[in-house]
């Protein structure tokens, strides 16, 4: 990669500043390539998106429970809103790096990716990011159908809450991706890390607010579960948009987790990649 013009060689230098500017210049192209890749498999993408219907299954249960009156402060409308936002946030924060890393590490397909002048994790992050417009596009008809079926579900948040929600979804997006990457990297040490991921997912579904709004947990558990990383990846933006929690402290917790887990992921990558080389792949 050092065959370019002299000024380009300077640009590809190894200092951290040079690396960042390299990344910034490559970024638009990477996003474009990743998006083109997704469009090629658009039918599969639609199916993936449609598979995320579990919030609706949960909604049916809580909706049926609330026919006789509100349950723990949630009436049927509140439940519908909660699980509708749940569906949207889950969709916008979806990633697949744990599958990809498991596959790439076990099959040795990581090796060619390591030859690229860009870290494979960063590349996957760009891919995941470029899927966002696509996922949003599929969400539109779903949300539209909901608005047509039950217009009372729609509501207009204040601008402050809305911007806090965007910042919160962004944190959830980064966190959800980072956690998946961490579990994927476990494949450096274990031949197959999907079992660990399934175990995490089972705990996550409960403590993130995926199955149940955390408000409905026993009172002693509510505050504690909101500090855990599970909640920061899904429940936090939902509760924030619905005005159930204080935006400032929620965002602080979320971004705190982003910093901590990203550092852990960077460290894990550095240790793991050495191990990968040692296997001889």
């Amino acid at each position: 990669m050092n065959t370019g013009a002299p000024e380009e060689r300077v640009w590809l230098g190894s200092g951290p500043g040079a690396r960042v500017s390299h990344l910034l210049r490559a970024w638009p192209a990477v996003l474009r390539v990743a998006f083109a890749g997704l469009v090629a498999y658009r039918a599969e993408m639609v199916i993936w998106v449609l598979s995320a219907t579990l919030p609706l299954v949960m909604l049916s249960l809580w909706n049926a429970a609330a026919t006789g009156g509100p349950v723990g402060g949630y009436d049927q409308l509140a439940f519908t809103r909660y699980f509708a936002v749940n569906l949207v946030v889950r969709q916008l924060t979806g990633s697949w790096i744990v599958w990809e890393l498991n596959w790439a590490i076990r099959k040795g397909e990581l090796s060619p990716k390591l030859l690229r002048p860009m870290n494979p994790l960063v590349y996957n992050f760009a891919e995941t990011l470029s899927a966002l417009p696509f996922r949003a596009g599929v969400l539109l008809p779903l949300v539209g159908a909901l608005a047509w079926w039950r217009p009372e579900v729609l509501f207009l948040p204040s601008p402050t809450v809305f911007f806090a929600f965007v910042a919160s979804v962004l944190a959830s997006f980064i966190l959800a991706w980072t956690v998946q990457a961490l579990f994927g990297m476990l494949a450096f040490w274990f031949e197959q890390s999907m079992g660990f991921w399934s175990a995490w997912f089972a705990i996550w579904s409960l403590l993130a607010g995926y199955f149940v709004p955390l408000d409905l947990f026993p009172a002693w558990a509510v505050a504690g579960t909101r500090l855990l990383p599970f909640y920061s990846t899904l429940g936090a933006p939902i509760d924030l948009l619905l005005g159930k929690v204080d935006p400032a402290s929620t965002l602080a917790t979320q971004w705190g987790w982003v910093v901590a887990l990203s550092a852990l992921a960077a460290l894990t990558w550095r240790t793991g990649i050495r191990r990968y080389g040692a296997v001889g792949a």
Partner: protein
Amino acid sequence: MRWWPRMHMEAVWALVRAALLTAMQYRASFIAEFLVGALSAVGVAAPLFLVYARVPEIQGWTLDQALLVTGFFLLYNAFVSGIVEPNLGSIVEGVRTGALDYLLLRPVDAQLVLSFSRVAPTAIWELLAGVVVVVGALMRLGAPTVADSALAAGLLVAGLASTYGLWLLVVCTSFWFVRVDNLRFLLSAVTDAGRWPVSVYGRGLRIALTTVVPVALVSSYPAMALLHRLDTSLVLGAFATAGVMLVVSRGVLRLALSRYASASS
């Protein structure tokens, strides 16, 4: 492939045993999966505990009664992840790579080979969880009569047969459209609706869950049989659905195999 399969029981047994031995060789991961099985059982049951901590009953179902449905749903999940998915998933793979040719060459009924050559033994933990939940709920509800238990067992088998037929139908589409792996994810997402008693859903969904995607037959119906809540028409409907699903899926598989041109030729 003829219409009526000749059941080579010893061949089926040999297939299952070989599959078990293959899968058990990863001993460490097999034991680690125990945790996953236990956690997923907790994940399925926990929302029920949280709901019922606040309301005494939902659409005529108490906690213990709803747990029966959950238990049967876990049994269904064990069946799908243990037998249906590994086998039918390999059909999709085989169509794409051409490896299906080797399976079809065997002198045993093709559907038997395609449906029983693989077992994912980790599903045993989910099976165990399902049994524990059903038995636990029954201990609190009181033992059902022998007739009700027999009916529940029959309905469970019929429900498993129906859902197996549906899975086979979905997988058969891979003979026409090669890439359908993701349809399986969609199907398992839809069948997730089977975890609650079918009466929590609206009328339209309720009909869909008993006919189009008959997952309610495998979870709600056996529970209703144990609670003595089924009338004859529902029972007959469940068995009829199972019969239709089996016949239609076998027909479609026959059609698919007759059109299968093999990837190598």
